[in-house]
């Protein structure tokens, strides 16, 4: 099982590097396995993430901004999907901390993946709605009771107010 673990780690690390590059449009990132103590089992090690947004120095994840953290996390999730595709994925307002450029890059990547994986994306942002194959609006016309209506882009944008 140690072999399986290392194979998975190496595969995810390779894809994480390329996914990071296309989401950030530059810079570099990698995953590192950190054994808790010297000589302990690789299966017990922690996963360290090292990320360097374009033009910046290598820095601790703590110093990253809200949007940068969301984008790094998205890169990791997408990397896992590339190695072990999941038939579906639900993303609940993952694009909320992103600025316009990053929402576009994120949306384009979603589109690339939407061939293999079904995505259900809850969003307030217009660029993400525009990419959808199907759009649903949730309303509470009767207070406290949710209803679902299938909407067109124009109505969806009105519901979200964008």
């Amino acid at each position: 099982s140690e072999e399986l673990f290392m194979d998975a780690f190496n595969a995810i690390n390779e894809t994480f590097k390329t996914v990071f590059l296309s989401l950030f449009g530059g810079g570099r990132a990698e995953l590192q396995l950190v054994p808790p103590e010297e000589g302990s089992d690789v299966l017990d090690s922690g996963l360290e993430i090292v990320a360097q947004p374009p033009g910046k120095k290598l820095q601790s994840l703590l110093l990253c901004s809200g949007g940068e953290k969301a984008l790094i996390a998205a890169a990791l999730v997408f990397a896992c999907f590339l190695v072990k595709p999941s038939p579906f994925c639900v993303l609940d307002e993952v694009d909320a901390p992103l600025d316009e450029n990053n929402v576009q890059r994120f949306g384009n990547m979603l589109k690339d993946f939407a061939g293999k994986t079904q995505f259900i994306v809850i969003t307030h942002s217009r660029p993400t709605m525009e990419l959808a194959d199907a759009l649903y609006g949730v309303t509470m016309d009767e207070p406290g009771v949710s209803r679902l209506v299938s909407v067109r882009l124009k109505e969806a944008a009105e519901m979200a107010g964008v």
Partner: protein
Amino acid sequence: MRFHKLEMTGFKSFADKTSVTFEPGLTAVVGPNGCGKSNISDGIRWVLGEKSAKNMRGEKMEDVIFNGTEVRKPTGMAEINLTLQDVEGADSLGFSEFKEITITRRLYRSGESEYLINKIPCRLKDIRDLLMDTGVGSRAYSIIEQGKIGQIITSKPEERRFIIEEVA
């Protein structure tokens, strides 16, 4: 394997039977604050076998049953049906000849729960086994809750290890 339809009755704010048909590709869900969007994501997590009330944003599992409004009474049961299509490799339960499988989960106010596959009563373990074979497997990185996307980054290194383990 792909998601075809989700049908919720009496689950959280979905008091009346409500169904969502999923398309291949990208389905977007929009709406004002508090209207019930995240409840849909909770519904998917629940029908796939979620055991923790905390992950359902409640204190006890009965919190998922429609609790009433100023004019409606609470209901006695929550039910969700999830229909999957093109299911490969579902041999474990002898469903391989079906191309369409419907998973059902019910919870009554009494605390009793029921699980069904294609209307045949089964155990939660059977649903989990079925999902394991079809690659839907664990949901660690397939359902990202609202506001939690940054948590993968800010958690401790040993907590992040599970991501590799899921894939291995």
